[in-house]
């Protein structure tokens, strides 16, 4: 199908020249950071930002189908444990761990997806909420494999070279560019339009020949697999995994990132990640205050600004342009 046969509206969300150029510029700047700043703390924060961005973007992919998962961190945890166990118990290289981190949550999502994705809206939120809690309890109870509530300590770096924060920075930046880029490409493709159609109206999408359930399950499994990789990167970065790192609170944080940034475009979770990880640095030592501020922001965004910070930015830009034009 050539682009000429499509309406201008359908072409609009396509990642055209300019967003791509902006993205390339941002990545180039990020790649230069370690050359300028050698501060270990900044580099570690950078790795955390990239890993969280992958997780948030993978949740965004699922949210785009109209389903908000409150159990996403559980899949991240499954990925983390899968990779750690593959590397530490089976003695396989890190690459195999990453593969396991993708495959394990993906398979689980494929198994439960056809059942839970029939549910709509609030029921899906509730089921994933409970599912996340069950997975966390499995991490706690299955002591022989997961180390129980204490988790697993002394996880090795992917390779000796990655003990250097700058090297890990590049590793997570590379993974981030690859995975977020993949998600962006997917959302801009034919599949992306089918995803948007499913969100807007499942019935209409179904009538237009989109295999709705199959598409939703595929996207769900893909999102869960990608967050599994983020989990593996995190586990080998902070060197331990434990059940509380992947609890409902963590799932909630991923939703918060998406809501604050905006749920309508992929830029939303990326902006949200920055905001979510940078604001706490400014309020260090006031952990409670941070949570209170996030809580209030959530209320305000949900009540008045469903498009999140991205929408706010867009409005401000429009205002500036109108001023400049008149």
């Amino acid at each position, binding site marked *: 199908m050539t682009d000429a046969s499509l309406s201008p509206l359908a072409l609009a969300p396509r990642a055209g020249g300019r967003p791509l150029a902006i993205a390339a510029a941002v990545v180039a700047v990020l790649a230069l950071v370690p050359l300028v700043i050698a501060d270990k703390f900044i580099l570690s924060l950078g790795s955390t930002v990239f890993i969280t961005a992958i997780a948030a973007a993978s949740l965004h992919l699922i949210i785009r189908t109209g389903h908000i998962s409150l159990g996403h961190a559980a899949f991240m945890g499954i990925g983390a444990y899968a990779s750690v166990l593959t590397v530490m118990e089976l003695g396989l290289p890190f690459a195999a761990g990453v593969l396991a981190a993708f495959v394990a949550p993906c398979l689980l999502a494929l198994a439960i997806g056809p059942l839970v994705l029939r549910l709509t809206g609030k029921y899906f939120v509730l089921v994933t909420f409970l599912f996340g809690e069950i997975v966390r309890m499995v991490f706690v109870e299955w002591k022989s494999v997961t180390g129980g509530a204490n988790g697993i300590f002394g996880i090795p770096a992917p390779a000796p070279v990655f003990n250097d924060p700058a090297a890990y920075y590049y590793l997570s930046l590379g993974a981030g560019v690859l995975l977020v880029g993949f998600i962006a490409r997917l959302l801009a493709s034919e599949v992306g339009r089918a995803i948007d159609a499913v969100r807007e109206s499942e019935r209409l999408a179904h009538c237009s020949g989109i295999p709705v359930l199959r598409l939703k399950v595929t996207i769900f499994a893909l999102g869960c697999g990608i967050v599994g990789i983020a989990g593996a990167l995190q586990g080998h970065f902070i060197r331990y995994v434990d059940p509380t790192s992947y609890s409902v609170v963590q799932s909630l944080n991923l939703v918060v990132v998406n809501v604050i940034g905006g749920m309508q475009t992929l830029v939303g979770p990326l902006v949200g990640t920055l905001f979510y990880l940078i604001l706490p640095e400014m309020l260090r030592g006031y952990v*409670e205050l941070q949570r209170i501020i996030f809580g209030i922001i959530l209320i305000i965004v949900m009540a008045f600004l469903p498009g999140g910070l991205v929408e706010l930015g867009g409005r401000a830009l429009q205002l500036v342009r109108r001023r400049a034009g008149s």
Partner: protein
Amino acid sequence: MLSPILLGQAVVNGISLSAIYILVALGFTLLFGIMRVVNFAHGAFAMLGGYALYYVYGRWGVPYLIAAPLSALGVALAALVLERLVYRWFYQKMFQSMIGLLGLEMAIVFTAVIIWDPHERSVPAALAGIVEVGGIIVPTDKLVIVGVAAVALAAFYLFTKFSKYGLAMRAAAQDVEIAAAQGIDTTRIYQLAFVIAIFMAALAGGFYAQTYALSPLMGERPLMMAFIVVILGGMGSIPGVALGGIILGFAESFLGTFYGGSVAVFASFGAVILLLIFRPWGLLGTPET
């Protein structure tokens, strides 16, 4: 292992757990049924109820039967401020309310952490003694809890069924716009329902703090339980809450007594997930069109 005494003990535990669960879940389902709000901040109000009881009864020594309803009422009336500032923006917006009120829960809980440190405290028992009936040991405390809960539930039932305001509340639950067209002041009715819902959550929170422990983070479990009870019975259905609360209370008590706590939680969560998948509107709810 299956001695009649142990069985009786499990039944008594089941009744008192059911009473707490029904109280928490009733407020939750009320807010959902009438205002279409999924109150993720419900646990926070239960926690506040616990602290209110801690001060009114534990510190100031007001007699228990007055202190329990009084502290819950105090929380509910104070919460009216939040009704005006926060909840009003989310009425009839099921989805936005979920995330927005999660934010409210976060804000309340961490404000509580700042005011009262995160350490656990305990609320003294209403009565210290135990009653022995045919070998079954029942702490008097539990009897008081069940009694107060039963009175609150009966009062709620009579109020919604027979009073003018109860009728108005039921009308608003069916269709707000038509109710308003009939001359019902829906803003007031919403406030009334809100106060009732928070009152019950705070009352249950007090009992919960008494039975387990009091801390700013204690609201999480009551919230989960309210969730499960409401899903089990059907969202927005009041008889459903009674049924769901009894099922969950007894399941937890029996499975907990015979197989241990974590089996009980696994089993109830698993059962609820299965129910959600095959009958998402719950046992007594009605499917959405």
